[in-house]
């Protein structure tokens, strides 16, 4: 059902992180941008359809004190109403660039204030929500940045408290237009999920407790929260109530990435067990309860996956990265 397409070579192999692939589709320009973290550097590249690589660029975390160059935790494109920014998080802080990665427009240094010496200090978890960009940190705080339509006048507008352990991932979806609708979910290393409503001030709506394993990746679609856990399970929750409706024993190792194709409600899960699975989310016509169906599974031999993304909003193609793998593997449906 899916065939292996031409891989895109990387200058540096992918690091063993979670959510280690970001994809920006630019259909108007017939281009796709890919972003992968190597370690102390991140690689951005653009490719034409068929995966022909065009240009590539490396970014580094801003230096600081320390024995070795600071490590990058994540790189992610944020699509806002009037612009696209590339956000890079590291063990030093948060860097924001124009979408092609050429101009840095903002730098936020992390405050390691109350960190004990044994605690690693870093930023991780990036998502756009309306004209805000939300970034998670090691302490559990989520920083909310207000982004102007253009220019570098970015302002830290709020710090959300809700988590006590390092943030792993943040998911958002456009507000549905009604009042009490959740449009952001944050996840952390303890597996706790916080459900928020965005606004000039963000409001915490619900908390969904963890169960002893991290939740490295989370997605939100039409009020359905999809959460991937360190024990290989995918859970689907009703965002409005926080109730668990579906539990999938999806992978034999930790899940490293989830992605959504919003047009069709397809969910992509990738695990350290070398497998990628595609699921179809839906609601039962009678009860309205969340349902799921397994569509496809793919094994990327001997590769501990670390990132996975759909490459188009209809979910007919996807790409994955793996630890130590110096290429982006692409698949498309036949």
């Amino acid at each position, binding site marked *: 059902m899916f065939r292996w397409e031409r891989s895109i070579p990387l*200058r*540096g*192999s992918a*690091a*063993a992180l979670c959510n280690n692939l970001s994809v920006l589709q630019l259909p108007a320009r017939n281009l796709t941008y890919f972003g992968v973290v190597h*370690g*102390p*550097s991140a690689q951005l590249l653009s490719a034409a359809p068929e995966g022909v690589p065009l240009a590539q660029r490396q970014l580094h975390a801003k230096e600081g*004190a*320390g*024995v*070795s*160059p600071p*490590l990058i935790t994540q790189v992610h494109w944020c699509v806002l109403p009037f612009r696209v920014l590339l956000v890079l998080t590291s063990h030093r802080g948060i860097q924001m660039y124009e979408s092609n990665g050429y101009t840095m427009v903002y730098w936020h240094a992390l405050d390691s204030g109350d960190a004990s*010496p*044994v605690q*690693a200090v870093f930023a991780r978890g990036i998502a756009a929500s309306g004209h805000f960009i939300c970034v998670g940190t090691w302490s559990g705080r989520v920083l909310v940045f207000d982004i102007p339509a253009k220019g570098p006048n970015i302002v830290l507008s709020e710090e959300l408290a809700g988590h006590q*352990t*390092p943030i792993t991932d943040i998911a958002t979806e456009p507000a549905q237009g009604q009042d009490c609708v959740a449009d952001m979910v944050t996840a*952390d*290393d*303890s597996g706790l999920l916080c459900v928020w409503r965005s606004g000039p001030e963000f409001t915490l709506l619900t908390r969904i407790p963890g169960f*002893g*394993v*991290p939740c*490295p990746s989370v997605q939100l679609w039409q009020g359905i929260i999809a959460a991937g856990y*360190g*024990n*290989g*399970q995918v859970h689907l929750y009703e965002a409005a*109530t926080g*109730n*668990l*409706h*579906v*539990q*999938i*024993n*999806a*992978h*034999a*190792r*930790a899940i490293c990435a989830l992605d959504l194709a919003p047009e069709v409600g397809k969910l992509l899960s990738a695990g350290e*067990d*070398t*497998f990628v*699975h595609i699921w179809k989310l839906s609601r039962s016509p009678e009860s309205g*309860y969340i*349902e*799921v*169906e*397994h569509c496809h*599974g*793919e*094994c990327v*031999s*001997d590769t501990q996956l670390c990132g996975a993304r759909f490459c188009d909003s209809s979910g007919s193609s996807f790409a994955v990265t793996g*630890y*130590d793998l*110096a290429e982006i593997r692409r698949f498309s449906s036949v």
Partner: protein
Amino acid sequence: MQPFWTFTGDEWTEVDRKRVLNDIISTMFNRKFMEELFKPQELYSKKALRTVYERLAHASIMKLNQASMDKLYDLMTMAFKYQVLLCPRPKDVLLVTFNHLDTIKGFIQDSPTILQQVDETFRQLTEIYGGLSAGEFQLIRQTLLIFFQDLHIRVSMFLKDKVQNNNGRFVLPVSGPVPWGTEVPGLIRMFNNKGEEVKRIEFKHGGNYVPAPKEGSFELYGDRVLKLGTNMYSVNRPVETHMSGSSKNLASRTQESIAPNPLAKEELNFLARLMGGMEIKKPSGPEPGFRLNLFTTDEEEEQAALTRPEELSYEVINIQATQDQQRSEELARIMGEFEIMEQPRLSTSKGDDLLAMMDEL
């Protein structure tokens, strides 16, 4: 200046083997050294680790030439990479460490002082790491994997056992027991608003997994269950490693060498503390010494040294090149205490003896 005797015999004796193992293990588990290792710190640079490793390997009457030292380090690195990569759950890196300690204790059964040192280390590990969360272990494992990134040296034993492919990458099996705490993939359960299960579906996940039998023990004594980290050489095995085609990504390896000041002050300080903690005993009188050769002949060893690919050459920190005068003098003093003053004419042994040495005595 202590000259070494020329050793006229050509075999290691049991006494020699025990001596070397005891010396190395007691140096490694020395309290001051362990104290330094346990301090919260960033991931060691490859250079720093290699330097420390070389010191440890020379903590006794056994010596290695550059080529054999490189090979030993390659073996150690790839074996450890294998263990960390294949850990079913992040917390299992601690079980792997406990397996290492259990095996080490087996080598020094007759030395109660050293046994005590190892047990003490065990207690410290439990105290510091025993209570970490799954998320913290995941960060530890991910950070360790950064150290091993892009290392694909082929190890004969791994190739023969089919745990490593010809391209140097490890085999990740899609069968066998799932980690403790994970369910066998293939089941979807759906619930209503009251949390009652209303439907169950199975799906084909592609692997061939079975449930985990039981959890490994984190106690001082216990069944670890996990085999990773146990003695690879408990059956006689060859120690060949293969360089060719190991690392095609030079960009990733040059990152370390293009750092503006390779001897960053912090790294020097760290090394000085670590070396200071290593109490390597100076020989009080003339000592027999052994040079360990991990190749079949001396010529082969020389050849290996000459033909080692550039991108795989290990750099040991050069104390003279530092700009910190006081620190460099201190380091030179510490390192100088361990210098061999003249190159001994010694018996050499084939790589097999390393294996024999690693066997349970």
